């Protein structure tokens, strides 16, 4: 899906996977999370642009639209139970697979020392 390097600590990216939009985050410690990109409160595909942080120890992302926080492990919204349409306010979550980097492509510069730079996220 993307190289581990494409993920900036504390920030996310959006990926298109079989027609579904996935938000992928890497936190400050290096852990990677994948949740749905659609913000249930606005209906916009923007979760990947939220700010990553913690709430009472849980890793969270705050929606950039109306700022509700979602637990990155469970997808559960920590601020509200229901979205405006009545559906439960939660993001789908996917497991994350990190795989070793493929042999360097032309033009790629190998990182000077090993992990974590040589890992790549796998397809979810």
């Amino acid at each position: 899906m993307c190289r581990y390097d494409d993920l900036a600590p504390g920030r996310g990216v959006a990926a298109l996977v079989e027609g579904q939009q996935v938000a992928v985050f890497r936190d400050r410690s290096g852990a990677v999370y994948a949740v749905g990109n659609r913000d249930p409160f606005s209906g916009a595909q923007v979760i990947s642009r939220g700010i990553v942080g913690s709430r009472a120890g849980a890793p969270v992302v705050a929606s950039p639209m109306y700022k509700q926080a979602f637990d990155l492990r469970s997808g559960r919204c920590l601020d509200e139970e229901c979205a405006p349409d009545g559906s439960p306010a939660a993001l789908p979550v996917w497991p994350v697979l990190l795989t070793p980097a493929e042999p360097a492509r032309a033009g790629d510069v190998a990182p000077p020392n090993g992990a974590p730079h040589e890992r790549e996220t796998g397809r979810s």
Partner: protein
Amino acid sequence: MRDPSVTDIHKHLVLVGHGMVGQRFLEALTERAPGAWRITVLAEEARPAYDRVHLTSWFSGTTADELSMWPEGFAQSHGIDLRLGDPAVRIDRAARTVTSESGAEFPYDALVLATGSYPFVPPVPGHDAQGCFVYRTIEDLEAIRSWADTARTGTVVGGGLLGLEAAGALRALGLDTHVVEFAPRLMALQVDDGGGAALRGKIEELGVTVHTAAGTQAIEAGADGRVASMALSNGEVLATDLVVFSAGVRPRDQLARDCGLPVGERGGIVVDTACRTADPRIQAIGECALAADGRVYGLVAPGYAMAEAAAADLAGLEGSFTGADTSTKLKLLGVDVASFGDAHGTTEGSLEVLYSNSREGVYKKLVVGADGSLLGGVLVGDAEAYDMLRPLATSAAALTVPPEQLVLPASIGTAPGPIALPDEAVVCSCHNVTKGAIRAAVTDGGCADVPAVKKCTRAGTGCGSCVKALGTIVADELAAAGVQVARGLCEHFAHTRAELFEIVRVKGITTFSRLIDEHGTGEGCDVCKPAVGSILASLNAELGNSVHILDGEQAALQDTNDHFLANLQRNGSYSVVPRVPGGEITPEGLIAIGEIARDYGLYTKITGGQRIDMFGAAVDQLPHIWERLVAAGFESGHAYGKALRTVKSCVGETWCRYGVQDSVALAIELELRYRGLRAPHKLKSAVSGCARECAEAQSKDFGVIATSAGWNLYVGGNGGMTPRHADLLVSDVDRETLMRTIDRFLMFYIRTADRLERTAPWIERMEGGLDHLRAVVVDDSLGICAELDELMARHVETYEDEWRATLQDPDRLRRFVSFVNAPGTPDPTVRFVPERDQVRPAREDEDGNTLRPALVAGPRLEVRTR
């Protein structure tokens, strides 16, 4: 108590006079007996009630609208028929009717007279010459200002409170000013000889010539009928082109006299403690009334108390006015003067404690009773202690400290502070709120801060002189109740934004990681990260960081708007606002924006800040759009940031018939100086080329209005949910002083404000308020101005256009992709439909066009024209 059945739905009340007291009466009555009375108000003046206490501020730019005390919608919501410019001329008590000047007749069930007073003009020869004025209404002030245009010397007759205010106004109008006072000292009613002497010294320092123990004998007019000179009883003759009479006021009781109501020997309609006249259907309140204690009160607070008493009576409630505290504190020509309680020591057996320092122009006298209680006092030159001393004097409690400590300068004595006040001490005398009531609002009413207490008790909402005391009482009460006021930013930092700013600055911390590891807990959140991002952005140059907010770890701190240097809209698309400094734009600039918007199918709208907003861009498109904007000479408008937005301007003297300065040039200069400056919240500004204020500068965080002598700087205004007019910080300053003052104001704000705190609440929260702010940025009372100047100089030096810099760096550009694994593929869920010849986001139930993936030339959306 009045028979409650009087408050029948069909009863009609006529109020004669619509001044401050009349308006207060209406508010009190409609609050206590909503809907009970049909109300007609007969007003002589052409405008509804306005703040006469602050009348003089009209000369320094406060508009008639701002002085108005007539809330919008008040008449409608209470069914009040306010008849302006149609004074009552006759009362027929037998028929129970009032006739107005226009001839209309109004039957009444209850009649309230609030006709106020008229200025006393001594009947000396020539008192009606052209150029002689009184000082009572906005119209009087307008006439004085226009006459002053052609005058060189002005003389005020009367050295009382109002006379000195008038003298200050004449001085500010540039006149050589004299004050003529009949009594042997200034402010004879309020202060004693020592206080009068201190006051005189201070006022003469300001260039006002004072003549005491001098009566006006005659006014001579020239051949043209204009006033030319004034002869005094001491033989002096003053050449003068303008005269203001401010020799006291007399109750306007003629209506009452004409219908046979008893009036006092020296005027004033006789009323009882419920403000009822001899006719139980008629009440009189304010300056026209002779109160039950045999006095006519010329101050607003007793007038308000009478209005409350009369309204309570009419509502069938208990209400009485038996006399009032005539304490006053004011700033006359920049000199603090206060007088409270038994200022002249008339109480049997009273003693005086005196502190007098003619070098500093400070005079303080306390009158102490034989039992050791504080009875009253006079303060001139330093009235800081008034807020605490006045309630102490009115509560009659014994002093807990030796009285001399209360008059010594703070450096020598120790002020006991308002905590030493007993509960029954009146802290706010405008609204008669005791310390006990304030404490109860905190402990029982659940008020957690000063604004809440103000709302709940009305304390501090009158003249505002008690706000500082209020703050101390509220803070002490909260502390006593053990209320831990969580001051921290969020769960990750126990520090306020201002504290974090100092930590970052002093320790030279350059990253969020280090800051949270050393001074916080956890990983941060969407509250503290952008706040720290903003602090770092303000200090980057100082810290030796890259000044670009998307560099290094800083990128992860930014809100989505800052992260993409654009504004997120509801469907996930972004809008783009190039900077248009001062709102000045060339035809070529307009064409370039138009072409770019057309080529990318963007919806365009003119913003309130005189720029053009382009909506509907995908993240992949942003660099392409900006490449073209930068090529056309545009730069980031920072519409996405907590930063300076725009400096709006009117067209100014270059084109406008009324302009007195080049407002556009100054607006451009300000906008270019402060562009990119990161702050706790967005910053807006405007420059108006004359007092007509077309740029609406008084609704901005910092606004500048041209005067014929320079610039007036207003700060702390905003529009939005809680609109607030800005306050005048400095006036008539030159360009350099203006810039320096704004530099310091902004940097002081950036250093000390809370997260997302606009300048208005920041100033309101500041201890000492606007005066303190002025002391810091003008007089350098904290000794930090050099630092503030340096910080701003660094900002100006290191500014770079964020978008131009982003376009030059492939690393910064990497983030502008829709999908990490399919860059260039637009978000298929972002769809648009045509509306009024442009696009808008499709609603969920609508189909619509998605953006086309061809990005190099930019997608063009087909728009159907109607």
